[in-house]
């Protein structure tokens, strides 16, 4: 059993027929006012259908356009980018090789620099005499000089004027 509101809605929509339509229209207190209201409802329905329908279509087209553009962009990208992983030239193997090669180059340079440095610093590796002195009481006329025989890498402290000693002092 439908209520009055349900019957009213069905009547507005034109869905009542037969005895049900006759009974409902007979139950209306002011049929003219009801007919006017039905006409207004129909107009409103048509208007809404037209406006909402047109708007919905525009959104659908916009979405389709967006979707087509995205598909086109995706298609234009290189395949490896679409795969998701960011590829790089530095693989593990290449990193290892590059590291090893860098160390080798460093060692080569280090050896070269050290080898090149030695001649310049050769004097540093000759024996150096920091100071020398003789007893002025025992040998008042003694003089001291020093030199390096670089060819033989021998350093010499040369004294002159030391007190001469008899041959006996050469004993072991």
């Amino acid at each position, binding site marked *: 059993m439908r209520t009055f509101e349900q019957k009213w809605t069905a009547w507005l929509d034109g869905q009542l027929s037969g005895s049900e339509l006759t009974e409902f229209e007979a139950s209306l207190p002011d049929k003219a006012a009801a007919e006017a209201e039905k006409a207004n409802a129909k107009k409103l329905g048509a208007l809404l259908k037209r406006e909402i329908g047109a708007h919905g279509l525009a959104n659908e087209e916009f979405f389709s356009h967006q979707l087509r553009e995205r598909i086109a962009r995706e298609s234009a990208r290189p395949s490896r980018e679409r795969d998701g992983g960011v590829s790089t030239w530095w693989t593990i193997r290449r990193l290892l090789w590059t590291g090893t090669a860098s160390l080798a180059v460093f060692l080569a340079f280090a050896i070269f620099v050290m080898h090149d440095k030695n001649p310049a610093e050769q004097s540093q590796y000759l024996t150096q005499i920091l100071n020398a002195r003789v007893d002025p009481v025992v040998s008042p006329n003694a003089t001291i000089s020093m030199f390096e025989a670089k060819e033989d890498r021998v350093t010499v402290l040369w004294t002159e004027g030391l007190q001469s000693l*008899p041959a006996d002092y*050469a004993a072991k």
Partner: protein
Amino acid sequence: MARWLALFTAFIALIVSVAPELHGAETVWSGLVIAENVAQPQPIPPELTRIERPLKQLFGYNQFQVIGQSSKILKTGQEDWLAISKFFGLHVDARGETEAGYVLNLKLYKEKELLLETDTKLSRRSPLVIKGPQVGSGQLLLVLVVQ
């Protein structure tokens, strides 16, 4: 690849481990030498073979005889020792080690009398020769060599 890397690492480790050992304990030979010109010279002592040519060229003698000597193994670079003959004494006082060799204080005594004193940096590669007093017809030389 892994094999090469392991070899390379081993090579580097070897260099790093061996390098400090190159400056380990060393022996310093110190000698009192009488240089003379004689008709029939004796062969040069083995300790002086290394410097035979400069000894003969610089001092002009044809015979070199060791009258006193000492070989000292330096471990800390702070040792001291004596090389003595009947009348002479060479006191060597090591006062530290440098990259090139040892810092030494040398004192030459004639019996108890100090004749000569010097401070040197004795290099591993470079012997030191000190011309001492005239002794008879010859010459006293002091020689120090890192062996």
